[in-house]
């Protein structure tokens, strides 16, 4: 298995103009990764899949990360044929608000199809070139992206209209009775 430095130089030799940056991982896992520029990412990914020595034919995990200044997509690649991996590639968007497009890698690895839909759904990264980019887990008319760090759920999230006003009145009366009584505290009896 090649090191990230060797993979970087292999990519740069094969694809002129490809911008690849090594992201070091200081944790004991030692899983370093390669950050690709979105413009050349598709070509680089194709090279990683088809290169005779790397043969990263299996995209295991694709996921998003919400950083303070940008959104990031992370892909974990393995090779079923050569039985090595992981090679980790990542792409960053320009910002978190209006320039959130990244190239979809689904045409290269079908495995990304649902996972990129999930990233789109939960993080709001728009994958250009994805054949079927819809929300995966949240419903169609849902507005926000729940996995973002600044997401706040609306306070009427589970609001349901009550059918009868009198039910509300009874509930209100019960509540005020409860507030006056002594059995409100559910803690263990002391005496």
């Amino acid at each position: 298995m090649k090191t990230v430095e060797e993979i970087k130089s292999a990519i740069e030799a094969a694809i002129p103009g490809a911008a690849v940056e090594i992201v070091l991982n200081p944790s004991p896992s030692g899983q370093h990764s390669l950050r690709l520029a979105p413009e050349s990412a598709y070509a680089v990914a194709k090279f990683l899949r088809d290169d005779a020595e790397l043969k990263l034919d299996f995209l295991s995990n694709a996921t998003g990360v919400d950083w303070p200044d940008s959104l990031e997509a992370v892909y974990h690649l393995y090779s079923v044929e050569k039985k090595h991996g992981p090679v980790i590639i990542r792409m960053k968007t320009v910002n978190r608000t209006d320039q959130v497009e990244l190239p979809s890698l689904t045409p290269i690895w079908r495995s990304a199809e649902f996972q990129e839909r999930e990233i789109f759904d939960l993080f709001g990264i728009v994958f250009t070139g994805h054949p079927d980019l819809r929300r995966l887990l949240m419903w169609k008319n849902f507005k926000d992206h729940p996995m973002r760090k600044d997401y706040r759920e609306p306070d009427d999230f589970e609001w349901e209209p009550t059918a009868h006003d009198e039910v509300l009145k009874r509930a209100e009366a019960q509540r005020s009775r409860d507030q006056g009584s002594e059995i409100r505290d559910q803690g263990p009896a002391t005496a």
Partner: protein
Amino acid sequence: MILGKIKKRPKGWNRPQAVAESGDGELLEVAMGPHHPSTHGVFRMDVALDGERVIKLRPVFGYLHRNHEKIGEGQSYLASMPFTDRLDYMCPLTNNWAYALAVEKLTGQAVPERAEYLRVILGELTRYQNHASSIGFLTQEMGASGTPLMYAFREREKILDLFEELTGARMMVNYMRFGGCRVDASEGWLDRTRKVVAGLGRFTDEFERLLRSNAILMVRTQGVGRLSAELAVNAGVTGPMLRASGVNYDIRKVDGYGIYNRFNFRVPLGDHGDVYDRFMIRLLEMRESIKILEQALKDIPGGPVVDPKAKSRGIRPKSGEAYGRIEAPKGELGFYLISDGGANPYRYRIRPPSLINLTVLEDMCLGSDVADVVLIFGSVDIVLGEVDR
């Protein structure tokens, strides 16, 4: 109108090819689920039918979504351990293991020998009961109402009794810790496990005889729901489904995580990639699991069950990231963690085998009869707790 107008699919070699309509009638659109009994939970398939033939199939997810990953980011590393039990609730111990492995990679934590052996024993028992029940469900869906499933559940119950004795719960076990396991197994527990394992071989033979010679099972499963090896790899399919398509990829062999490289076992492979192969691969893997169990139960050493230097509570890993994966009964289960040095993970991601194995559901179902959709879906072996998270 559930599906909208049936559009031509975008071109690309790894996308399913459109099936031609016969043109003599209109298409029937059926929403199978979310409460269809064959979906093993709440899951919907929007199917377009031309007569009995499936023209288009669109899976709809999210009925059981509770944003597990968001919950994981809001609490400490240890507090997520019991939550992993709720992912694939048929196999809580392998979920625990995958998560513990990822955190151990992140912190560089070592695991003592005895704990590694216990993990293998529990992991293989989990695999055995998962495969037995999944075969039971499959036969149930073929119309073998109850009997094979109850046989499988009888054996599963013996294994769950062992889990309960060791961990305190049949399914919600919360057993593994970073750097070992929560409690030690007694000699008595190991003896009872040996006794249960000694009986599993006989059950496997009996189960196979009951099912394998059955003409209905053969007709319903052979040649149904084929999946090519090339597409399976490209679509990230893992586990018994991948190996049924003839791809030799078992993470226990490839990564050798834990102590799997010490055991002698084989990786069964299919060559047609149909429903029958998936069913047979699971049966053969049950036999291999027994082999691993016998070796592990013979060799298990004494010693501590958790690394004395390990810290479970309130860990703050150095900033960095780690991806840990194991061969769970349903496929590759991975956890991807990013730490920013705090007490909670900055990013907590679960790579669910069940969801990604469903990527190829439409490819396998196109052109087959609607009755076979139930079988093909059953042969994927999913749990909705993991699909929707």
